[in-house]
């Protein structure tokens, strides 16, 4: 068993050989690395297989001595290889000699050895059960609403740190700036309803009732609903993103350290602005929607404008029709503002969490709007308000 032999394990990349040259004599082996052991060298896996085959075949070898060839180019992928190999050898009780390695490589190997002793652990992310998490969310939201009410009282009694300028700024950005999109959406809603309705009404030869249909539907239902949905996507998401980003930047914390309540300073102006702007936008949407119906009525059905308006007027003879829509829109505005701000304030600590809270702000406010709308209709019909 004392004979010596010479093995070479290598792969060719381009026209260069990369691998290990092994000189075995008795139970000692000298391994010399040559070529380019770089991350970009893709055929290391093959060398690794051959190497393991060699080690299995030569179980009698007890001591491995590593050295680098003169022309060797190497980076951390070789260190990783050496670290893995020597760990295996040490476990099997074989000895590994690294004295002949350059100092830099030896140091990197040692650095790795020291730190790999530290315990491997995984963070404990205990998954809170869905139900209790949901319940906590509801309780949190109720607490948020309570705090909002108390800061509203403070604001009304003039003791709040809310700045009037913030309120006006928020009102402008969620009210006036939303006019173009509200115009487009509600005009098209009125137009579409008129087209769809006209086909049905024509069957009964009651085409002029298209004015009743469009005006009642817009005023009672669609105006508030459309404004609500636009506001959720536009303003609710913006609130959540803005406040959430402030939380990530620790701006909220810095407000708190100055004794300024984020509720009064950030949430109140935004929610109040939306609360006040939503009915105004709804009135506007109602008018534009009716004009959309009028366009179909005059251009497609050949009614005169005057005729159409008179019919609209008689349909809207009770002012309650308009008020019921506005009442809804007040609540919608409140819901959107509250949900947006709540989601922003309760966002997590990283940017992925911010994305999630913006998404859930929009989803939650749209859902709540539709639910509230249905609730309103049910209550109205039981109270004989229709």
């Amino acid at each position, binding site marked *: 068993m004392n004979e010596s032999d010479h093995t070479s394990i290598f792969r060719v990349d381009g026209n260069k050989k990369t691998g290990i040259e092994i000189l075995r004599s008795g139970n000692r082996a000298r391994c010399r690395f040559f070529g380019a052991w770089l991350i970009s060298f893709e055929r290391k896996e093959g060398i690794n297989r051959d190497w393991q085959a060699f080690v299995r075949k030569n179980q009698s070898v007890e001591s491995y001595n590593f050295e680098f060839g003169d022309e060797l180019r190497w*980076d*951390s992928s070789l260190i*990783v290889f050496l670290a893995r190999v020597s760990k295996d050898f040490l476990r099997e009780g074989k000895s590994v000699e690294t004295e002949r390695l350059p*100092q830099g490589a030896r140091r*990197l190997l040692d650095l790795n050895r020291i730190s790999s002793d530290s315990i491997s*652990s995984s963070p404990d992310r205990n998954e809170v059960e869905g139900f209790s998490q949901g319940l906590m969310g509801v309780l949190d939201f109720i607490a948020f609403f309570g705090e909002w009410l108390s800061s509203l009282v403070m604001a009304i009694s003039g003791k709040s740190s809310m700045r009037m300028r913030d309120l006006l700024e928020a009102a402008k950005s969620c009210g006036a700036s939303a006019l173009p999109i509200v115009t487009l959406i509600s005009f098209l809603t009125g137009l579409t309803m008129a087209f769809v309705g006209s086909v049905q009404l024509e069957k009964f030869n009651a085409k002029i009732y298209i004015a009743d249909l469009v005006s009642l539907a817009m005023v009672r239902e669609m105006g508030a609903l459309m404004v609500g949905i636009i506001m959720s996507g536009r303003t609710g998401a913006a609130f959540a993103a803005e406040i959430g980003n402030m939380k990530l930047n620790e701006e909220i914390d810095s407000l708190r350290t100055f004794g300024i309540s984020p509720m009064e300073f950030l949430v109140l102006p935004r929610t109040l602005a939306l609360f006040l702007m939503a009915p105004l936008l709804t009135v506007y949407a109602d008018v534009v929607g009716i004009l959309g119906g009028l366009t179909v009525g005059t251009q497609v059905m050949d009614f005169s404008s005057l005729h159409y308006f008179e019919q609209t007027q008689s349909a809207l003879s009770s002012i309650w029709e308009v008020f019921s829509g506005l009442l809804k829109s007040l609540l919608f505005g409140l819901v959107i503002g509250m949900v947006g701000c709540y989601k922003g304030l309760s966002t997590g600590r*990283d940017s992925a969490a911010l994305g999630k809270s913006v998404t859930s702000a929009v989803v939650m406010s749209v859902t709540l709007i539709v639910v509230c709308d249905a609730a309103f209709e049910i209550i109205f019909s039981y109270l004989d308000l229709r």
Partner: protein
Amino acid sequence: MNDCVKAIDVSNLSLGYGSSLVLKGVTFSVKEGDCLVIMGGSGCGKRTLLKSLIGLLTPRSGSILLEDRNLWESSIKKRKEILKSFGVLFQGGALWSSMDLVENISLPLREYTNLRNREIRELARYKLSLVGLSGYENYFPSELSGGMKKRAGLARAMALDPSILFFDEPSAGLDPITSRKLDELISELKQSLGMTFVVVTHELASIFAIADDAIFLDADTQTLLDQGKPAYLVENSMHDRIRQFLKRGLLSN
């Protein structure tokens, strides 16, 4: 002087944002395997210079050569090749928050190499162990402390074994012991891997500990005032401002 290889060669560089000029006529070079510190008071354009060195800010004029290649005058393919040759440690670590540490380090490896999954994970784990973060492979950045984030950022910057590493204020927000450990890690890596380091900092202790060479930027003249080893500059610089900058720290030490 001519026989040493220049890792970075900047000549007559001017930088600015929009209509405002921040730096002009900046010329310096960094020898391979050296650690250059970019220092200067707040608002002197340290970060701006770093941003243009790493390819985030287009220079107004002048040239930047990284290992004799110009990042700003290269084709997209060539540019990727150059980008691969350096790593950047951002101030807060800038780890991607939706990925755990192993994934953070694996991403550049996946992008630039055709290694197998197992090899990539092994390399990533090794890089983490180099910066003393073994066992934190599956942590998300939000679950780490500031110092750990920074070290993880360093591991990611080293993912592709770059020949140049850029550091943006490595010691900002770290306690003195942690920041000294980071300095030691930098020296360790410099000696073992022979990397070139460019460090933006105004932490005096760090400057004296790690710098082989330093440049001083000045906000008033909007240019580079002096270049040299900090220990030499502190006594022999022609500029009062530099001696003052470096001495204040010595007095308070």
